């Protein structure tokens, strides 16, 4: 699974960081950084929750 963020949509509400801080990090510059674009399968539920809870629908999961 690969995490894809549409940075044109992302407005750094940081909801994803609250769900999975090991994958998503909003820094002091107010931008979102994806720490691991290929999270392990064990993170799937949290990744799907991040997709659902993003207020901007900016996150998607690609299956490679």
């Amino acid at each position, binding site marked *: 699974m690969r995490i894809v963020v549409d940075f044109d949509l992302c*407005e*750094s*509400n*940081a909801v994803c*960081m609250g769900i999975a801080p090991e994958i998503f990090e909003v820094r*002091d510059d107010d931008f979102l950084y994806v720490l691991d674009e290929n999270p392990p399968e064990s993170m799937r539920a949290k990744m799907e929750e991040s997709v659902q809870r993003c207020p901007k629908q900016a996150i998607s999961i690609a299956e490679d």
Partner: protein
Amino acid sequence: MTTTTVIVGASLAGINAARTLRLQGQLGPIVVVDADPERPYDRPPLSKQILTGEWEPEKILLPAGKEDLNLDFRLGTRAKAVDLASRQIILEGPTGATETSSFDSLVIASGASARRLPETAGIAGVHVVRTLADSMALRAELDAGPSRVVVIGAGFIGAEVASSCRKRGLDVTLVEALPLPLERILGAEMGQVCAQVHIENGTDLRLGTGVLQIETSSVDGVERVRAVALSDGTVVEAEVVVVGIGVTVNTQWLEGSGIVLDDGVVCDNTLLAAPGVVAAGDIARYPSARFGRTLRVEHWETAIAGGEAAARRLLAEASGEMPAVFDPIPWFWSDQYDRKIQLAGRPMPTDECRIVHGTTAEFRFVALYGDGERLTGVLGMNRPRHVVQLRALFDEGVTFAEACERAAAL
């Protein structure tokens, strides 16, 4: 035996309830009813990207509404009445014809409607922003380039509409009856900061000011707004007026049904309103042990979480499992001009408010609220990282003093 579920409301709470039921294995029919004829859409952009013209309606369709979940959508259809004993609901379709539908379980997610000013019905140029149709109608009038827009009510909707109008280069007068905007939610000190944000961005802010009258003129037989007479004695000429004075819950169809109503549908702490009946979203009033009172929360995230929880509550009832308690930490954001305001928790306006990062002068800060003992709120202005990190403190049960120390260390 298959279960038939009727969900009244196809917005965020209703659609997430439907999705959760289906993904958790409900095989029977799921009927999703909404008075709005549009496919399910997201509301936050209605006062922002839709209004500024940056986004077209297609972009705000809810993903769950586009998934293949085998839902029986009845859009443009209004719930009129429900009989819990016979498990029947009366629906009025787009043509005005009524039909009776049977259900085993019911999800009440009919939300709320924008309050309007009395005696303004039918006056052209007077708008509310609640539905996509509302927002598109207002946008069309903003496209025409009015010389001034008067926004009545400086709550979150009013503030965002004022901000969107300023982005379009329009002159805006924002009228608020209370001495400070958002004072009942954020307290006086932070209300003052929010007032300053409007002023810095060129909005003509009139605080402690009521509306006496919408003045109209007749153009080609159409009564149209011409000006707004205010309690400070001024008359503000404007071709467009936007009313943002809160909402009323859509509970009319539940009156006399036996469902307990009290500014919302009264639920238990698992969102159950009656056997086989749950409520979610803006309409659900539930007891919060976390905040020591009943809450009715009109936030985007609570609508998603509530829809999911309400669906799981029905499934737990059917399977005999222990239901989960619904008591999330309320959280919302509001984008005004180039500022992002986020609040986690539910402070009382009289709670102590302490700045723990940044300064209000730079409009980039974090403030914590406490009731003398507990942490009750985390407010951020352009500080999303801190808000999300400090939100986690609610579940750690730290005192207000500890929360302030932890915040300073971030």
